[in-house]
C-alpha cells in the first residue's frame, strides 16, 4: 500500500531529524561571536552583559543547551528569538507565506516554462530553434540573481514602469522576483526535460507506438511526457529547499521578507534559536521534498510503486 509506505517514511523522519538537529545545533554554535552583543547598547554596564548571558543560558554547557532546545522543540516550542525578541514560531510563520508565494510561483514558473522549453528543444526539427532554446536556457543559469534582479528592475520597473520596484504588496510586486528566480530554474528544468525526452525517444516502445500509427502529438503527450516528467519531478521535489531558502539575494534586492532573509539576518546577529529553527525547518522541508519526490515517482511509475510497497 502506498499509504503504508508514506506513513513509514514520515515515521523515519523523526530519527533523521534528531540527528540533523544535533548537526544544526553544532554548526550554529561553531559560529564565532554571540547574540548578546547585538542586544547591549551604549550605556549598559559589563555586568548587564553577564546577566544577559546567564538569562539566555549561554553559559551552560552545550549539551544542556541542546537538550533544552530540543526538549522544547519536542513540545512544539521553537523558543524565543534572542535578538529579534519574538517567538521563533511567530517569526517563521510571518516569513513563510512570503517565501511560499515567491518560491512557489517561481517554482511553478520554472517548472511550466522549463518543461515547455525543454519539450520544444527536444522535439523541434529546426536546428535554429534548438540552438536558440539552448542559448536561452544557458543564459538563465549564468548570471547571479542579484545582478539579474537589478537589471530587471532597471528595465521593467524603472524604464517601462510595468511593475513596482520592490515590496511585497500585491501580485504585481511578485512578477519580477518570480521571473528572476524562475529564470535560473527554467534552465535546470528545461535541461532535465530535454535530456529525459531525448532519452525516452530512443526507447524501443516508442518505435512501436509509431508503428501502431499513433500521431506524434499523442505519442508526445500520452507516452513520452509521463516518462520525461519522472526525473523532472524528482529534481523539482528535491529543490523544495530552494523554494524556501534559496531566494536570499532576490529577497534582499526586492525588499521582500522571507525565510531566507530571516535566516541570513539571524545568522548575522547570531540569533541562535532563529537560525536553528529556520535550518531545521529547511531540513524538514528538504526531507519532505525527497519524500514527495519518491511518492510522486511511485505514483507515476507502477514499477517503482511495486518495488516500494
Amino acid at each position, binding site marked *: 500500500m502506498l499509504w503504508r509506505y508514506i506513513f513509514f517514511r514520515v515515521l523515519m523522519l523523526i530519527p533523521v531529524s534528531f540527528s540533523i538537529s544535533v548537526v544544526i545545533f553544532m554548526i550554529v554554535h561553531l559560529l564565532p561571536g554571540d547574540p548578546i552583543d547585538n542586544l547591549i547598547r551604549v550605556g549598559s554596564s559589563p555586568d548587564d552583559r553577564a546577566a544577559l548571558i546567564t538569562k539566555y543560558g549561554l553559559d551552560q554547557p552545550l549539551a544542556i543547551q541542546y537538550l533544552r532546545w530540543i526538549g522544547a522543540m519536542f513540545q512544539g516550542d521553537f523558543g524565543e528569538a534572542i535578538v529579534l525578541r519574538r517567538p521563533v514560531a511567530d517569526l517563521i510563520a510571518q516569513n513563510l507565506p512570503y517565501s511560499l508565494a515567491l518560491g512557489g510561483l517561481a517554482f511553478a514558473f520554472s517548472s511550466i516554462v522549463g518543461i515547455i522549453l525543454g519539450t520544444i528543444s527536444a522535439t523541434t526539427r529546426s536546428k535554429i530553434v534548438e540552438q536558440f532554446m539552448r542559448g536561452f536556457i*544557458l543564459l538563465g543559469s*549564468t548570471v547571479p540573481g542579484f545582478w539579474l534582479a537589478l537589471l530587471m528592475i532597471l528595465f521593467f520597473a524603472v524604464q517601462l514602469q510595468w511593475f513596482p520596484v520592490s515590496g511585497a504588496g500585491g501580485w504585481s510586486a511578485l512578477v519580477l522576483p518570480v521571473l528572476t528566480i524562475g529564470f535560473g530554474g527554467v534552465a535546470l528544468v528545461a535541461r532535465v526535460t530535454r*535530456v529525459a525526452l531525448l532519452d525516452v525517444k530512443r526507447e524501443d516502445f516508442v518505435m512501436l507506438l509509431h508503428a501502431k500509427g499513433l500521431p506524434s502529438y499523442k505519442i508526445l503527450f500520452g507516452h513520452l511526457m509521463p516518462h520525461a516528467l519522472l526525473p523532472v519531478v524528482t529534481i523539482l521535489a528535491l529543490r523544495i529547499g530552494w523554494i524556501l*531558502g534559496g531566494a536570499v539575494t532576490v529577497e534582499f534586492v526586492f525588499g521582500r521578507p522571507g525565510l531566507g532573509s530571516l535566516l541570513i539576518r539571524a545568522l548575522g546577529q547570531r540569533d541562535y534559536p532563529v537560525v536553528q529553527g529556520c535550518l531545521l525547518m529547511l531540513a524538514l522541508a528538504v526531507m519532505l521534498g525527497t519524500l514527495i519526490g519518491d511518492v510522486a515517482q511511485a505514483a507515476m511509475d507502477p514499477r517503482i510503486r511495486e518495488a516500494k510497497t
Partner: protein
Amino acid sequence: MSSMTGIAARWMAGYRGTPVSRAFGSWLGKIAGGFLVLLVLTAIFAPWITPFDYAAQDLTNGNAPPGWPHLLGTDQFGRDVLSRVIYGARTSLSVSATAIAISITAGMTLGAAAGYFGGFFERAVMTVVDLTWSFPDILIALIFVAIIGPGLTSTTFAIAIAYLAQFTRLTRAQIVRLKRETFIEATINLGAKPHHILLKHLLPNAIAPVIVVGMLAIGDGIVLEATLGFFGLGAQPPTPSWGAMMSSGTAQLFLSPWVIIFPGVVVAVTVIAVNLFGDELIRALDIRDRIRGS
C-alpha cells in the same frame, strides 16, 4: 546486438582523437574552447597585460566613463576597471577552479568509498549528501564562511563544500553502476585485491563524467563567488574578483554602470562558454547517460 550501431554512430560523430580535440571539433566547441583558453591565458599573464596597477587609486579621477586611457573607465577610487577585470579573471577562475578541484577530490573519495563499501556507511553518507545537495548552495556557503571567517581561502572551501554533494552523488552512482559490470567480476575472479579493483578499474572509469561535471560546475562556482561577493564575502579589497566588482556598491549601477556591467558581462560570457564547452565534452566523451540523474 546493437552495439555495432553504437560504434558506427560514434564513428560518424567523428569519434576520433582525444576527447578534448573532439570537443574542439564543432564550431561551437571552437568558439567556447577558444574563449576559455584565451581567458586562462589572460588570467595567467594578468600582471603583464594589465594597462594599470589594479590597486592604484586616483581619487581625483573616480568614476571616469570608458575612454582613453581607461578603456573600461574607472571605479569610485579611480582604479582602472579593465585592469581589475583582467586581474579579476585570475581571482574568480582560480577560486572557482580550486574549489571545484577540492570538491571533486573529496567528493570522489567519499562517493567511491560509499559506492564501494555500501551498507550503513553508504546510507549515512548519502543521507547527509542528499540533504546538503537539496540545500540552497548560497546558504551552505554563507554559513561556512560565517564559521571560518572571510577571505579567498574560506570562499574557496565554501564553494567546495557547497558542491561536494554533487560530486559525491555522481561518483557513487558511477561506482555502483561500474560494480555491476562484468569486467569487475572478471577481475575479482582473477584474484584481485579490493584496492586493485578500486584504483585500477572503478575510479579510472568513474573519473571522466566527474571531471566534465566539474568543468560545468566551475561556471556555477564563478556565479556563487559573485553572489558571496554580494554579501561582502570573498575576495578582500583591493584584490579584484568579478563578484566583488559586480557588487561593489550597487549604487555604482547608476553612477558608473561600467564598473559593474563589465564584470557581469564577463561572468555571463565565461559561464556560457564553460557550459557550451562542457556540453561539447560530454558529447565527445559520449557520457551523457552517465551524467544524468545526479
